[in-house]
């Protein structure tokens, strides 16, 4: 599903942000990507989403390879890879339902299918009643749920999450984590970057990939 092969990424000429990173996330797997700030977690997610390209090595996501992908292929890739950010990135001028519908509209989905799909997605994240609210009227946890519903809009194979609980309190974080587990249970792979060790400890039997200074220093699959 997701494969990084000896990936190195330079943003400047001196220090690489990532060096010789390799790992494989299987279909339906739940993986935590962890490590201190600046370890390279966000860079890994951006590489998987192909917002960045590796300086060396290869990133493969489903049938898309960083070595061969063309710019015009990116929209197809990104419809199959949902992305959830720490700061939610909702459009403040749009209502909750419209924020989710937006992800379907840009793909050219027929109008008749967008409404029911949005309702279903909002129901899935427990926000059916808030469809007509604006993001600013929601709590942080609720806004993150809207962002998750948007990321799920196009039935992604993979859900990437970059510190999705970073701006949430403990209770909201637990709720978001539970939602990720439910999504994963339905077959979607999840790769979640977090530096919150306490959060990881609550979840046994998940894949853990630890980065430090741009290198993989621990991979639970390799150590087991």
């Amino acid at each position, binding site marked *: 599903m997701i494969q990084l092969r000896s990936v190195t990424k330079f943003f400047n000429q001196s220090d690489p942000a990532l060096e010789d990173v390799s790992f494989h996330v299987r279909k339906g797997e739940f993986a935590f990507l962890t490590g201190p700030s600046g370890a390279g977690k966000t860079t890994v997610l951006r590489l998987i*989403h*192909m*917002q*960045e*390209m590796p300086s060396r090595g290869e990133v493969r996501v489903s049938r898309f390879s960083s070595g061969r992908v063309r*710019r*015009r292929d*990116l*929209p*197809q*890739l*990104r*419809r199959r890879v949902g*992305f959830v950010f720490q700061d939610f*990135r909702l*459009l403040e001028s749009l209502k909750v339902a419209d924020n989710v519908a*937006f*992800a379907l*509209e*840009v*793909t*050219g989905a027929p109008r008749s299918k967008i409404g029911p799909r949005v309702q279903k997605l909002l129901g899935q994240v427990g926000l059916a009643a808030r469809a007509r609210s604006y993001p600013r009227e929601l709590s942080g946890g609720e806004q993150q749920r809207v962002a998750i519903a*948007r*990321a799920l*809009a*196009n039935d992604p194979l993979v859900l990437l999450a970059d510190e999705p609980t970073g701006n949430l309190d403990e209770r909201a974080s637990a709720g978001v984590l539970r939602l990720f587990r439910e999504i994963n249970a339905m077959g979607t792979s999840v790769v979640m970057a977090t530096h919150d060790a306490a959060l990881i400890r609550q979840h046994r039997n998940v894949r853990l990939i630890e980065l430090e200074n741009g290198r993989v220093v621990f991979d639970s699959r390799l150590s087991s």
Partner: protein
Amino acid sequence: MRIVREALAGLGRAPLLSGLSVTAIGLGVFIIGLFALTAHNIDVALSGVEERVEVVGYLEEDASSQQIEVARGEIGRFPEVEDVEYVTKVEALYEAQRELTEFSDVFSDLEVNPLPASLEIRLRPGFRTPDDAAAVADRLAAYGFVEEVRYGREWVDRIYALRRIAGGSALILGGSFAVGAALLIGIAVRMAVLARAREIAIMQTVGATDGYIRRPFLVEGLLTGLAGGLLALGLTRLVHTAVDRTLLSVEWLPSSWALAGVAFGGLLGMAAAGRAVRRELRRLDAF
């Protein structure tokens, strides 16, 4: 619907810059419009002149009527020639007296008719150009009994040169303004892209194609360009009316030219916007 709504919102987001872009395109197309007006009126004048383009061969005193008749027949069969008229010495004098009334006394006191007989050749439409007139004149001059050939080459050449200068100046000056206008539109669109950078980044994240993101900006450029084209049309019309009323009678542009001017403004706007947004999208993404 979304595209037009977003394009209008984009225009309203930076009204000063949008206004500047419209003005710049307007000025560029206006310059082209002024020269087009000049070129068109020269064309109109030329077509009037062309109808009167004729080649006249003045004949030697001793040219025989048989020679003249044979030559008339031959010249009449030239592809450029509509008709050939033989003007005798007597007819030439009569014409001179009729046309130059102030000299009628001089002509009537003459003991010897000094005016030569001539062959007056009118050219067919499509052959009334300096080159064709020159070609006919050369062949006419080849007859031994033809003393001199005239067809007003100099001023026909000058009018054509003037038209070429008007056309060339329009291209150079109008083109320079058009490039300036395209740069301004580029800045306006880049600012619009930056103002919406967050939204565009989210669109890219959820899998919008470049075409989907680009379309509202293209429409914004098109609308800016069309507004500039209309402004140019209005300004050209103003100048036309002013000149027509105060200086000399000038004809207004054919409607196809006016439409082409406005369409050119629109296309210029759209092309400039397309180029700017393509660059910005690539800057925002990995490729």
